[in-house]
């Protein structure tokens, strides 16, 4: 099962992610939907907040195979500089900066590559029943 969703880079558009994932995962354990939605939502929020894509949009690609959901996010914004990110210290509550930390805990895998003028994020989620 494959699906593509092109979204404008704004917070209202992000609300389409949940229903799109629900469609994509019909037939799979629905109890996983909430945590997958949160993870994909964090990935997409980062594109809205930080990528500054010149076309004001990004694309989500979803793909289910062998009980694994793969999500790719592609935008044409500024590159992501992993070196500049400081992982939050759990003992020091800070106001923001939890998006990637949350996604990393929910996903099986998270990869980022810059290809030409494109940012490509790829993340996978296990769909095994609990």
């Amino acid at each position, binding site marked *: 099962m494959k699906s593509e969703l092109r979204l404008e880079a704004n*917070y*209202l558009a*992000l*609300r389409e992610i*949940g229903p799109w994932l629900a469609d994509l995962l019909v037939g799979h354990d629905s109890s996983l939907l*909430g*945590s997958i*939605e*949160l993870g994909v*939502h*964090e990935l997409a*929020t980062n594109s*809205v*907040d930080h990528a500054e894509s010149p076309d004001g949009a990004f694309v989500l690609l979803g793909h289910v195979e062998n009980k694994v959901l793969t999500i790719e996010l592609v935008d044409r914004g500024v590159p992501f500089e992993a070196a500049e990110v400081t992982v*939050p210290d*759990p003992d020091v*509550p*800070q*106001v*923001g900066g*939890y*998006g990637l*930390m*949350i996604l990393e*805990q*929910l996903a099986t895998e998270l990869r980022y590559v810059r290809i030409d003028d494109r940012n490509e994020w790829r993340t996978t989620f296990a769909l095994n029943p609990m």
Partner: protein
Amino acid sequence: MKVSTETHERAVHVVTLSGRLDALEAGPIRELLSSYYANGDHDLIVDLREVDFVDSAGLAALVKAMKDARSNGGDLRLVRPTAEDANRVFALTRFDQVFVMADSSAELLSDW
């Protein structure tokens, strides 16, 4: 022994939310909470029982407001969401250890 007495009234404001507390709502919620601080009231309860989704932006709005309350001698405390999907972000970031949380606003009010 001379005795004199007086009474100070203190307000605890309870803000009940329902629906999604995501990036779209984080800004307006932050403004609503700040409006109490502008009045000098720094004791707030945010009732999340009927909230079904919280993301890191929604969390950040609550964290910012909680820090502002505490630095003014008050606190922002939470009534836990009933939906697991809304609790997840608190557990993953360990903010369930930072906020004072309970299952009802009555419980929070009686222990304040």
